[in-house]
């Protein structure tokens, strides 16, 4: 699919691929095994421009689009899905929210450091009683003078303990369900902020997922993103972009799993021949490769839609739904092809299998994606064929 990419996009992909193979791979192996955060990698990614891909040059970024971000995420994910989720949240949720909804002051204050990876970004939406049902969130944000006072708890926050800036969603109006939510840019140094328990996850071991506690946390009023009540809109808009990122992460993991499966099936002999020569294996591999190709095309198309400024909420949900389900089918079959070996930590597929599972859950479960798709479809049909 070379023709789909411009020269500049091919060069970007080459840099991402070379970096992932040479610099990231050794770190990824160790960090995933020990459950450590690969802190040093992000500074290098920042120097190369990967932490401010969509940020304009005036704020220290490279001003490229989501298509380029997707290319980079596929390459990074094919080597370390944990690193990719940190990069995806940073670029497609945090940078975007500040860039699109932040005041000039906030942009100048935070974006250059984010783009250089002098600080990492986190996005705090989920609460114990507000997962898929975002509007059930309870974290309160009360305006007092020129500050907002935040009280509440966020959970499952990627990079929450490592971030220099966290987009926090809270309730500024108790009476309005959707319009009562606002978004804030919070620094961990703000009084009243603390990091709670750290999750011991099944996979994505080289990324951190923590609880954040806000006890009379004081946030300057100037750190409000957009206006009061815009929180839900900011969250949904950011998540559309985030979903393309997670879909790109899916195709990276899927590619790695396919590589592992083919290489293993070509080496492994049973009943006197290579197992890839049995159709039971070959057909699996053909289906895996087809799933991957379809998912990749959806990622490319949706990213292009976004870069062209077209509406893409439905397409983003479809892409995330299809790609995350595809990668889970792919890692399942890739592990099956490995047989007993695949169930041991000696083979990479074991890690890929665990990592892939999170993708159907975070940034909107597969069930939520279907709700989004159905809602958008119905809107389209109501317009095309009014009942």
């Amino acid at each position, binding site marked *: 699919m070379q023709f789909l990419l411009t*020269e500049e996009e091919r060069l*970007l992909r080459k840099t991402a691929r070379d970096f992932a193979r040479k610099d990231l791979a050794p770190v990824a192996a160790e960090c995933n095994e020990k459950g450590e955060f690969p802190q040093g990698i992000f500074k290098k990614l920042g120097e190369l421009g990967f932490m401010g891909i969509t940020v304009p040059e005036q704020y220290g970024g490279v001003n490229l689009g989501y298509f380029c971000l997707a290319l980079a995420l596929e390459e990074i994910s094919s080597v370390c899905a944990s690193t990719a989720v940190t990069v995806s949240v940073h670029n497609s949720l945090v940078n975007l929210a500040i860039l699109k909804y932040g005041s000039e002051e906030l942009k100048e204050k935070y974006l250059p450091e984010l783009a250089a990876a002098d600080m990492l970004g986190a996005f705090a939406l989920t609460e114990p009683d507000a997962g898929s049902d975002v509007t059930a969130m309870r974290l309160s944000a009360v305006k007092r003078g020129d500050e907002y006072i935040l009280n509440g708890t966020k959970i499952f926050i990627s990079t929450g303990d490592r971030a220099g800036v966290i987009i926090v969603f809270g309730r500024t109006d108790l009476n309005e369900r959707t319009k009562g939510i606002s978004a804030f840019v919070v620094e961990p140094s703000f009084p009243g902020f603390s990091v709670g328990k750290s999750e011991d996850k099944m996979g994505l071991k080289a990324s951190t997922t923590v609880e954040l506690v806000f006890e009379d946390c004081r946030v300057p009023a100037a750190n409000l993103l957009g206006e009061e009540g815009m929180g839900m809109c900011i969250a949904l808009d950011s998540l559309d972009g985030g979903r393309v990122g997670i879909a790109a992460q899916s195709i990276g993991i899927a590619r790695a799993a396919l590589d592992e499966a083919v290489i293993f099936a070509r080496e492994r002999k049973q009943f006197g021949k290579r197992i890839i020569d049995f159709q039971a294996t070959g057909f699996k591999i053909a289906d895996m490769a087809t799933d991957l190709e379809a998912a990749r095309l959806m990622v490319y198309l949706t990213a292009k839609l976004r870069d062209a400024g077209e509406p893409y909420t439905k397409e983003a949900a479809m892409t995330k739904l299809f790609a995350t389900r595809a990668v889970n089918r792919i890692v399942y079959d890739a592990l099956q092809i490995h047989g007993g070996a695949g169930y041991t930590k000696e083979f990479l597929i074991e890690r890929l299998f665990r990592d892939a599972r999170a993708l159907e859950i975070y940034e909107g479960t597969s069930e939520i994606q279907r709700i989004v798709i159905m809602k958008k479809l119905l809107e389209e049909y109501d317009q095309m064929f009014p009942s």
Partner: protein
Amino acid sequence: MKILVLLKRVPDTEARILINQEGTGINEQGVKFVINTYDEYGIEQGLRIREQVGGDSKVTVVCMGPGEATELIRTALAMGADDAVHICDPALGKPDPFTSAIILAKAITDEGFDIIFCGKQAIDDDMAQVQSILAEMLDIPQVNVVAVFELSDDGTKATVRRRIEGGDEKVEARLPAIFSCEKGLNEPRYASLPGIMKAKKKEIRTKTLADLGFGEVPGGTRSRVLKWLPLPKGAECRMVEAEEMKDAVAELARLLREEAKVI
């Protein structure tokens, strides 16, 4: 300081090379082409020298190759080179080292230079001749297989170490000179995203043979490739296995005598 770096487009070292049916070259279908690995050390060294000397120092890439080489030249520009000369002419085909050197010498003389870096060899045909012929034609010193490079403070000479069997040879060369680079000289940098964006605006001057003043391919043909031949297929490896080592040895001896008939 004017720094020139020579770049050649070669098949990826990871690519599976198959010779075409006619035996006139390799089957390029599906083969990825890259910057010759040793040339990458040259690019990096050129950039480092520019950073060391500063001022209005400039790194110019010189590449002779087909139109497809543009992307690789652009990669070098994205790494940080300032501009490039791309010698591209359909009449060129696959020139022998002598012809290559004549053409490069003309382009290089037109450009002007204080120092030239290139790879110690191209990893495709492994001739390793062009830099030496070029040095003779330009009448400048050449030092090959450079693993350590140090430019004097006044920028008039370089002290380098050549990697030779079992050790290093320390050599001093007066500039202008040409240095061919060995693995380990440096760690070539990545083309950063800002670098890729900047490279779009950098100039690649394309030159045909006529632009360089040649009416036809110069040099005559001093050497000619008659045919490309695949390596003979190695026999399949057979493992001799047994519970006890002595049984395996006995079996091996039997196979060598009865099947291979070599003992």
